[in-house]
């Protein structure tokens, strides 16, 4: 299963990418929402998107709203961010996020959240 990490931080993308690879996932990376649109166009087999909130070009919420309109993601979008206020979380859910990972988190949180939205937690 291929996962797209959308995060402007190289170090976070690297650590999360490593967590995913050790769990058997394939990984693509985009540095912001705008970049993610291009990466998704070139990779039709992306099944899950991990989306940071605060990014320079197009932020996570703007990407969610873009996707609501253009339906470019074929699969669940999981927010992965330091934004942990309930208002923000609700905003992301209302705009199409399926799950929400608050930084900091551990590998088991990352993997179980992905599994819960891709297999219904089975």
């Amino acid at each position, binding site marked *: 299963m291929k996962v797209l990490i959308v995060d402007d931080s190289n170090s976070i993308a690297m650590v999360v990418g490593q967590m995913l690879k050790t769990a058997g996932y394939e990984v693509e990376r985009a540095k912001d929402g705008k970049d993610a649109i291009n990466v998704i166009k070139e990779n039709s087999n992306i099944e899950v998107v991990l989306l940071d909130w605060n990014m320079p070009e197009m932020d996570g919420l703007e990407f969610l709203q873009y996707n609501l309109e253009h339906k470019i993601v074929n699969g669940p979008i999981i927010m992965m961010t330091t934004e*942990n206020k*309930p208002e923000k979380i*609700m905003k992301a859910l209302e705009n199409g996020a399926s799950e929400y990972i*608050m930084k900091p988190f551990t590998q088991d*949180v990352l993997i*179980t959240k992905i599994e819960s939205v891709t297999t219904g937690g089975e």
Partner: protein
Amino acid sequence: MSSHEIKNEVYKFFADIVFAKTGIFYPEKDYYRLDSRINNLMEKYSFETSDELYHAYKNSKTADMETYLIDICTNNETYFFRDTKPFDALAKDMIPAIQAQYPHETINIWSCASSTGQEPLSIIMSIFENLGSATRFTFDATDISTKALSKAKSGLYTGLDVQRGLPIQLLMKYFEQKEDNEWQAKSEILSKVNYSSFNLFTGPFVPEKYHVIFCRNVLIYQDTENKVEILHKLAKTLKPGGFLILGAGESLIGTKTDLAQKSLQNSMVFQRPNETSTAA
């Protein structure tokens, strides 16, 4: 933390105490698993060596020392909706079956090793989500560890706790954010749980009190003799037609109870027959 050699006599002493108090069995080949616990006790009560701790514990232990030992020897590993399937099975199959058999009774549920409270709250959220918050039930949750019970009663969880197994939608619905990224279970779920201290090894067990008992990932730490004894007591504590839920992978093999094994929502559960009493 000390890394000195711990004598076999010291290992045996603490292994025997833990066994006597909790039924958790450390065979000699697993004595190394007591290392961190013994070191933890030494640090907490400021002893330089395990020998000093051993002599002090043997000759002048305090109730506090014993409580602390039990706390650090019981495994409190838990998370929300652990294994997921039993929660579906409860809400979708077991409770409707019990409601049909006991239409005028309030359903009594017991989580007998509730640790830090994730299991009871998961059960309650599952009932609310599937059957509605008007469902009539009582909920007893017990544990031997006072430390675990204290956290469970507070209903306060870290940002990491609430990300382990708990869907974000349920976090938003049933928890409130506190300072420092801690999350407080709302009163509507927390107040449903009646928490108390209980030792599965010593009881007391009230006959035919519960319609449903959750006893997950407890018996794996017991030796066969204790496992059989506890299972027989739990079976008698169930009402006829009531259900026992063990951990994934735990079975009744070799325990000679007359509980019937059933698969509900792909989850293995055990039901007390209606027509016969449980084996003594």
